[in-house]
């Protein structure tokens, strides 16, 4: 096979990978989360009772708390 054919295959593979990424990203965003998984992530109630001071959610909540107290 000539060199240009290999190059063409390589370009097709790269473009295909980019298309797969974009399409799967769009589908991922459009797919609704399963039942019971709508609010996965940090919650203020749980974070307030957690003692992990290194966690960035706690740092964020602490900052907000201090700002509220100042006001």
């Amino acid at each position, binding site marked *: 096979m000539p060199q240009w054919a290999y190059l063409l295959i390589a370009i097709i593979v790269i473009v295909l990978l980019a298309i797969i990424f974009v399409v799967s990203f769009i589908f991922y965003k459009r797919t609704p989360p399963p039942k019971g998984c709508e609010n996965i992530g940090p919650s203020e109630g749980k974070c307030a009772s957690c003692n992990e001071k*290194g966690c960035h959610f706690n740092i964020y909540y602490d900052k907000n708390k201090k700002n509220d107290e100042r006001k």
Partner: protein
Amino acid sequence: MSAIATFLLAIVSAMLIDNVVLSRFYGICSFIGVGNRVKSAYSMGLAVTFVIILASLVCWPIYYYVLVPAGIPFMDTLVYILVIASLVQVVGLFIKKKSPALYKSLGIYLPLITTNCAVLGVAQSNTDSGYTFAQSMSNAIGTSLGFLLIIVVFACIRERLESSNTPKAFKGVPLALVTAALMAMAFMGLQGIGA
């Protein structure tokens, strides 16, 4: 030595003796960030294991059968990033659609894997070291299991340290880094095995 014994030895070597987190500092961000709870560390470790093995499975053939014949092996990093990002998205989509239980435990960690340098590092080292397909798979399995082991052990230690009486200045990340350094020294001791 039989092929299976060599394969298993390579896995153990990549897992314990040449652990990527402690010897090459790959995946430190998720190691420090997620390694504070055993449950989340286990979920993250499993997800990384899955993606590292899958990425190595896809990247090795692309490098040797597409990039090298085309004369553009220098494009490997770009292609690996695309492969890893696509894989994570496709796996995430599949989990979101088909397995709510798995989505609940892995859901928030899946996008983080795209930025985990351990995944890219393994795919890159497989081709840079000139490994065969079997060698690259043993490297991927060993490395990912090593990551899982280290992050879970680290989370166990951090959970115990949380309840211990430590100086205020050391609480959180400083103590985590001291713990990681002590673990690295402990694992360095394994390098004498077989010498």
